[in-house]
């Protein structure tokens, strides 16, 4: 009985719905209202299968959204409702797919998938629109002084005053970014609300198997944004060939720009993109990884290509310091590369970065090799007048000293450290212990040896062996001094310094032997000749004449010689005086005490002891204008 009653009730309800409902839609709505009163109605009111019923209603809902002219996401209630419908559709498809063999089910499923595809197309459009609109708003605020979260990645000129920044000039023409010194800035690439919207859409698209379309829409938009940001940093896209042919000063500028750009890219832009990817595709790691790779690949390659071009360029020694800049920039950014580029898609990029970094190390070693060649090649042409400091000595020593200011990096280069991150950090923090057995120390010692060998070859041009000795003294002394008060000293070690200081002394001795021993030899009193008074006085007279001429000649010659180091100059003068003066005093004394024809002989005394010493103190003044004292 109850069943009969129920059936009657249902029949009545159906009748009412059909009569009142002028359209299918209205009928459905009315039936829905009835259903909500009583569970029993839900199952039995319509002719449709439950699947068909749900689909029909979803179809209505979704079609309403799809036919809307304005973006669904311009209204949050609309978008929420749409997403809800899509979720239901996905759930239905998922639930009924296993039963697809049933003909009626499969027909409905087809309709469902059709509806899903339309929804997905729309979602893709909405996704793209959201991305474009959001980054456009960021773009606008870039041109105004984007200070808040939506702002650009770098301050404009007006904001410079507020920021504690050392940078000075700005041409004001092209908006080249000023370096952001504080890399701790968290950049919000897109407004949080939009990120959340994008994520909601992405979730559904991935669930529906439309992840490729979603990822593509995402990547295209962000890639463009990223590449534009990079181009605003003022980097040119230079080919390898162009870099080889560039003038060095132009290339230097480009390197400077590159160092700033690569830091902004790796510390700000890429992490920001990575974060955005991870948030939009939260829960879908491989989609996120793929998207990030697509976004960052082009820019990364562009940055690395430049570093590569620098790494294969000329090994002219003057380039060392800028190449070191590039090397250090990459080294310091390796941890960032490791962190962001280690998934399956990006790992190739990270490996490229490593290879190029190693190549830069090779370039640096090559530069030192070229320096060696230059030293070896430097011809012994014209002697330096006055035996002074040779330009090559000055050049090499100052160069090496400057290079050793980057000792820690150079140690790394010469030890061919290839493990990044951990070691890179260690080396950045540095360690000042002398590493005199390190590869760098060996390299430096070798350069010193080459330099000395070259100088020795050059010294042979001097016919006068005393001048040769002076030349070597000057240059050797310069070398030792430059080594002592720099990092070089730590590298080469105390023993090296001692040995080379000893060399200076040896040349000092040679100098004496080559010039003054002859003179002081004259002053020796030969006792045999002194046996007879006349013999003595004649011998003394001749000796005096000889002495005078030697002395005069030497003083004339050697006063134009150069000793650049004041201290060394004094030492030499004192040692000459010390060798000569007592002997001369003694000699003069003997002369004067020799009574025979002393007045005659005395006429031949040109120099008093004071005169002698005065002349000695005029030695090594150099010719006019080229006096010593230059360090």
């Amino acid at each position, binding site marked *: 009985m109850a069943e009969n009653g129920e059936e009657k009730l249902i029949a009545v309800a159906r009748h009412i719905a059909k009569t009142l409902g002028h359209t299918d839609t209205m009928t459905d709505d009315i039936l829905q209202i009835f259903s909500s009163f009583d569970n029993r109605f839900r199952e039995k009111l319509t002719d449709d299968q439950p699947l068909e019923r749900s689909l029909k209603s979803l179809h209505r809902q979704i079609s309403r959204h799809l036919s809307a002219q304005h973006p669904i996401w311009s209204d949050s209630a609309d978008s929420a409702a749409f997403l809800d419908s899509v979720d239901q559709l996905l759930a239905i498809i998922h639930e009924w797919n296993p039963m*697809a063999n049933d003909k009626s089910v*499969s027909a409905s499923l*087809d309709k469902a*998938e*059709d*509806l*899903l*595809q*339309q929804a*997905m*197309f729309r979602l893709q459009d909405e996704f793209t629109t959201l991305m*474009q609109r959001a*980054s*456009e708003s960021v*773009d606008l605020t870039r041109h105004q002084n984007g200070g808040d979260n939506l702002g650009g990645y770098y301050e404009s000129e007006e904001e410079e005053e507020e920021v504690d920044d050392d940078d000075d000039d700005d041409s004001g023409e092209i908006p080249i970014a000023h370096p952001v010194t504080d890399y701790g800035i968290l950049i919000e690439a897109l407004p949080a609300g939009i990120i959340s919207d994008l994520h909601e859409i992405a979730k559904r698209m991935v669930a529906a*198997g*439309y992840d*490729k*379309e979603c990822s*593509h829409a995402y990547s*295209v*938009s962000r*890639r*463009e944004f990223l*590449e*534009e940001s990079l*181009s605003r940093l003022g980097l*040119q*896209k*230079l*080919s*390898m*060939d162009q870099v*080889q042919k560039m003038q060095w000063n132009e290339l230097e500028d480009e390197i400077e720009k590159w160092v700033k750009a690569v830091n902004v890219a790796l510390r700000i832009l890429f992490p920001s993109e990575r974060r955005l990817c991870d948030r939009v595709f939260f829960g879908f790691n491989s989609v996120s990884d793929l998207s990030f790779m697509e976004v960052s*690949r*082009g820019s990364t*390659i*562009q940055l690395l*290509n430049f570093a590569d071009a620098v790494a*294969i360029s000329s*090994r002219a020694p003057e380039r060392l310091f800028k190449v070191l800049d590039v090397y250090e920039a990459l080294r310091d950014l390796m941890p960032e590369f490791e962190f962001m580029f280690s998934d399956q898609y990006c790992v190739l990029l990270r490996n*490229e970065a490593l*290879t190029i970094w190693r*190549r830069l190390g*090779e370039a640096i070693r*090559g530069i030192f*090799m*070229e320096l060696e*060649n230059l030293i*070896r*090649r430097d011809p012994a042409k014209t002697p330096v007048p006055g035996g002074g400091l040779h330009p090559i000595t000055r050049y090499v020593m100052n160069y090496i000293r400057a290079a050793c200011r980057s000792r820690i990096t150079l140690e790394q280069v010469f030890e061919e450290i290839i493990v990044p991150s951990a070691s890179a950090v260690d080396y950045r923090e540095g360690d000042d212990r002398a590493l005199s057995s390190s590869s760098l120390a060996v390299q430096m010692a070798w350069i010193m040896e080459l330099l000395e060998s070259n100088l020795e070859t050059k010294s042979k041009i001097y016919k006068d062996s005393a001048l040769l000795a002076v030349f070597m003294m000057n240059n050797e002394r310069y070398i030792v001094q430059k080594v002592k008060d720099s990092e070089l000293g730590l590298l080469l070690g105390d023993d090296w310094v001692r040995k080379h200081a000893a060399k200076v002394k040896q040349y000092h001795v040679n100098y004496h032997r080559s010039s003054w021993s002859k003179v002081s030899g004259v002053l020796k009193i030969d006792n045999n000749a002194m046996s007879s008074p006349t013999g003595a006085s004649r011998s003394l007279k001749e000796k005096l004449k000889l002495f005078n001429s030697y002395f005069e000649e030497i003083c004339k010659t050697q006063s134009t010689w150069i000793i650049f180091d004041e201290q060394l100059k004094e030492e030499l003068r004192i040692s000459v005086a010390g060798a000569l003066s007592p002997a001369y005093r003694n000699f003069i004394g003997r002369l004067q005490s020799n009574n025979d024809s002393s007045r005659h002989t005395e006429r031949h005394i040109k120099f008093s002891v004071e005169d002698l010493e005065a002349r000695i103190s005029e030695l090594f003044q150099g010719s006019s204008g080229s006096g010593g004292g230059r360090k």
Partner: protein
Amino acid sequence: MPVTDYQGASASFTNFGRSLLSMRRDQVHSMEAAHEATSQEIELEAFQKQVAERFNELSSVDSDQLLSVPWIRKLLDVFLCCQEQFRSILFNNTANLNKPPMDRYVTEYFDRSVKGLDVCNAIRDGIEQIKQWQKQLEIVLCALENQRCVGEGQFRRAKKALIDFAIGMLDEKESNTSVAHRNRSFGRNNTQNDHKSLGHFRSLSWSVSRNWSAARQLQAIGNNLVAPKNNEIAATNGLALAVFTMSYVLYFVMWALVAAIPCQDRGLQTHFYVTRQFVWAVPILSLHERILEESKKRDRRNACGLLKEIHEMEKCAHHMNELIDTVHFPITEEKDGEVKLRVHELGLVYDGLKNGLDPLERQVREVFHRIVRSRTEGLDSIGRGNHE
């Protein structure tokens, strides 16, 4: 090794030309009569022979395999082998490289090889571009493959992907026709960008500047590439010929890569002047001719790249597109069968690319690295030798 043996051997593989030894023998030197081939001469002769052999093998390919991914990979392998051999020749002859004119020839070669590096970078970008097109086909397959019965929605999805694919290729072709017409916009300050309507494909920007031209680069590589005269060859103990040979190999390989792979401002009108007197010239010139012919065919004249797989992608996509347009719902079993056939066809092309492109990219990168290494070593050894 007695001279007579070598003479016999050399005659057999230099039908068109004279071997180095026979050239030397023509120089009237009293010593020559008793001359034994030095190891250097053997090495140089072997180089000529092996370059010829390798290119002969490449040239024996069927026309349907020419410029396919596997063939390009073989080409790059050949390059690497030639390069390694050349490298060891340089290594064994360092002393001779410092004297003029060898120092100039070698430096010129390394200069050409830098331009080759740029081509490698452009090719890498080009491979990435192919991958982007391939992605659209992946979507088509995703939509149409393995479905119990393909529904209207999936067809629409496939159709959209095919349209995007076609637009992508068209965009590339148009940007290739004239540098001046390239209107790719950077920056969204241009409202209503054309590229938006084209589906954003062209925003895969090259890593080279907009002024860079593959055609010009090839011209630069081939610039002044003239065969050394016999007396030059003899005067340098054959080294001049070795350098010329390697330069030519580099030139041809780069040219073939540009012919096959999309890159900025492709132009194949560079000329190959080399007399057939050199053993390896025959296969190289033959390949050059065949590739050039391919580029002139009606359906390939505007191709983005002559790579076989690109052509296959285009054809498959075209067929699929046409087929989809003839599909009405509900779909007949016959139509469904046709679709499955086309999908299978597309799947084969796609798989071939998927398996081939990554290794190809790695190989191009390897070529890059080896060129760099050889150049660095070569320049270092010349530099060091320059003063002793």
